[in-house]
């Protein structure tokens, strides 16, 4: 994106420069043209201080791996700073704005494009880690306009968690199709669950991740292949919205469903307030802690039921990106390369419970024998990712907002698709 500087802009620049203590860095256009080809990273040991931001469980567990890295690279010292997930975007963008960044940060795939647009991240050096080492979906999610800006660390996707005992009581089995899904949820409710299925409505961050897969499953694509325009006002999107709405119309899902009200998804599953929920792998340890020995008798996990076209679920995960203003990019890339070795990825997976993006790490991490993981592994073959565009945050709120409107019956699916198309077109795909 190239902008013409006009005279008033130049004057403003002087004023702002005076006001801000003259920040420099004019000249290099962050996103214009092809990214500068990053030099390959050498094989030698890493040196110097390497500062990394990480969120959540990863922020808590990465220091352990960092220690083994420091031991293997005596000249290097990795420091991990834990950052709250919710506030990470604020922290990363203010850091980019000031030019005072750490070397690398953990990041969500859906947030990547917006930071790449700021010019704050460096492209991944060619040949850092062979593409074939990673899960194909996870690798795809590191690309913006065909260039990789991050290295996938772990993947997660959403599957169906349900009360196995209630399903048995109702005489229903894990659903394979949309039709069975409805019967299934009704059955769980008749067998005693407060609500057959938990669907988030209007809760930003969860609603769009649950709603959009319904659209995919109906065969919808949110944009055209070239990412030039939205394609939301389509029969497929309407069909997806209608399926999503049917759970509320049938009374098996609450119009005010949330993942994070008072209490938690796992607690409500255990209490039978809900019979089933679409959720990620982190729910497994939480449920095991609550249920103990009863876990396998009470909880079932299944891949999402298929719609008319496919059974895609939401692909998420964590990736590591290196800042353009990093003081030690070489060290940061070497640390990331180290984490991508199957044995390190396996060790990290054992510490966090994450599913490694490095496929060769699954076996040493003991994931191939676990029945629950097998379900996630199966689901990973059918996933989708949102369009990798800078405006994703804004786009996500549109989906969350219309999810809530459809769920509450404020707007009909066909009308919702029309309005979404118009709102989304206003936001654009830059």
């Amino acid at each position, binding site marked *: 994106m190239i902008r013409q500087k006009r005279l008033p802009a130049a004057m403003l620049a002087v004023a702002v420069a005076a006001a801000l203590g*003259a920040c420099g860095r004019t000249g290099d256009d962050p996103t214009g043209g092809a990214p500068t080809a990053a030099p390959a990273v050498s094989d030698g040991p890493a040196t110097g201080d390497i500062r990394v931001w990480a969120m959540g469980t990863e*922020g808590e567990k990465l220091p352990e791996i960092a220690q083994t890295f420091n031991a293997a690279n005596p000249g290097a010292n990795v420091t991990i*700073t834990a950052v*709250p997930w919710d*506030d990470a975007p*604020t922290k990363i963008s203010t850091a980019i704005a*000031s030019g005072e960044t750490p070397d690398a940060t953990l990041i969500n795939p859906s947030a990547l494009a917006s930071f790449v647009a700021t010019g704050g991240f460096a492209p991944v050096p060619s040949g850092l880690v062979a593409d074939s080492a990673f899960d194909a979906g996870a690798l795809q999610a590191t690309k913006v306009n065909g260039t990789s800006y991050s290295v996938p660390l772990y993947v997660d996707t959403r599957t169906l968690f349900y009360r196995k005992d209630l399903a048995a009581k109702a005489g229903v089995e894990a659903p394979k199709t949309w039709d069975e899904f409805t019967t299934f949820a009704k059955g769980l409710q008749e067998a005693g669950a407060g609500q057959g299925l938990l669907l988030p409505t209007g809760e930003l961050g969860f609603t769009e991740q649950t709603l959009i897969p319904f659209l995919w499953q109906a065969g919808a694509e949110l944009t055209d292949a070239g990412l030039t325009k939205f394609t939301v006002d389509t029969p497929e999107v309407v069909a997806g919205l209608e399926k999503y709405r049917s759970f509320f119309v049938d009374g098996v899902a609450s119009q005010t469903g949330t993942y*994070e009200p008072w209490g938690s998804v796992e*607690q409500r599953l255990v209490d039978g307030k809900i019979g089933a929920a679409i959720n990620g792998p982190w*729910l497994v340890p939480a449920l095991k802690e609550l249920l103990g020995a009863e876990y396998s008798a009470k909880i079932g996990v299944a891949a999402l039921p298929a719609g008319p076209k496919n059974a895609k679920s939401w692909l998420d995960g964590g990736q590591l990106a290196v800042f353009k203003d990093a003081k030690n990019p070489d060290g940061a890339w070497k640390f990331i390369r180290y984490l991508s070795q199957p044995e390190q990825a396996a060790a990290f997976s054992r510490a966090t419970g994450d599913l490694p993006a490095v496929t060769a790490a699954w076996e040493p991490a003991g994931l191939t024998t676990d029945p629950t993981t097998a379900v996630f592994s199966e689901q990973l073959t059918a996933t989708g990712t949102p369009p990798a565009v800078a405006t994703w945050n804004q786009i996500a709120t549109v989906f969350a907002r219309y999810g809530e409107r459809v769920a509450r019956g404020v707007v009909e699916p066909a009308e919702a698709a029309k309005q979404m198309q118009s709102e989304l077109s206003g936001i654009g795909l830059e």
Partner: protein
Amino acid sequence: MTQVSVPATLRTAAVPQPPPRRRRGRRAVLLRRGLLYVALSAALVLTMFPFAWMISGAFKPQQEILSDEVRLLPQQATLDNFHDLFTRVQFGHYFLNSSVVAVTVVLGNLLFCTMLGYALAKLEFPGKRPLFGLVMAMLTVPTVVTFIPLFVLVTKMGLINTYPGLILPFLAMPLGVFIMRQFIATIPDSLIEAARMDGAGEFRILFTIVVPLCGPALATLAILQFLSSWNEFLWPLVAGQTEDMYTLPVAIALISAGSNTVNYGLLLAGATVVVMPVLALFLVLQRYFVQGIATTGTK
């Protein structure tokens, strides 16, 4: 000496008024007072409930917190949450950071706001009115407005991830100037004039005569400033780039939004620890606090 110089408004504030009694209906008065106590106590219980529940929750295991049964006291009291707080996260270190920042911010504001407040209340100088107007106008500006420019500025000064970077933006708070100016204005000019006649300079007058009379206002300022500094979240989050510079609210956010499942016990324990110093400060200073506001508010 100090006895004589207490401003009139303060004296009225400090004197408890004798409860009015009438001959007729002593029992009616007692009854009314009894009802008042009952009503106030009921209101107090309602008001304190969330607070009490927070503290009791800090001693409960997660499952008990989430249970539908309403129980104020924990069934199986546990110290695990507090233990986790100080072992899993470096809560002690964050506590230190928060204390350093809050105490410096409070002391700095006490000093600078008093100096400016005195100049505004008792001295004439060119630019006085515009300065006061500008400071007051700043009271109405939402903090979110200046956030990004401020961050760029502090970074360019090389203060990111340092104590000065956490402290300096909060050392000059408009509300403090307002409180100090209003309070100092109530101090009789004759006192100051007399000192000037004796040949005392303005600095000496300020620190030996005015400041000793400002107890209530200083207490008010200290409480309000400590409260806002202690609970400030967004600035320390971005200005502290490594964990050793985090403050308590950031640590609380780490706990509550740290992973996909919320550890409520840990969160409530953290909140309990965080609230205690502020509560203690209020307990100690509350009497002066009311007086301080009395003078500011009625002027």
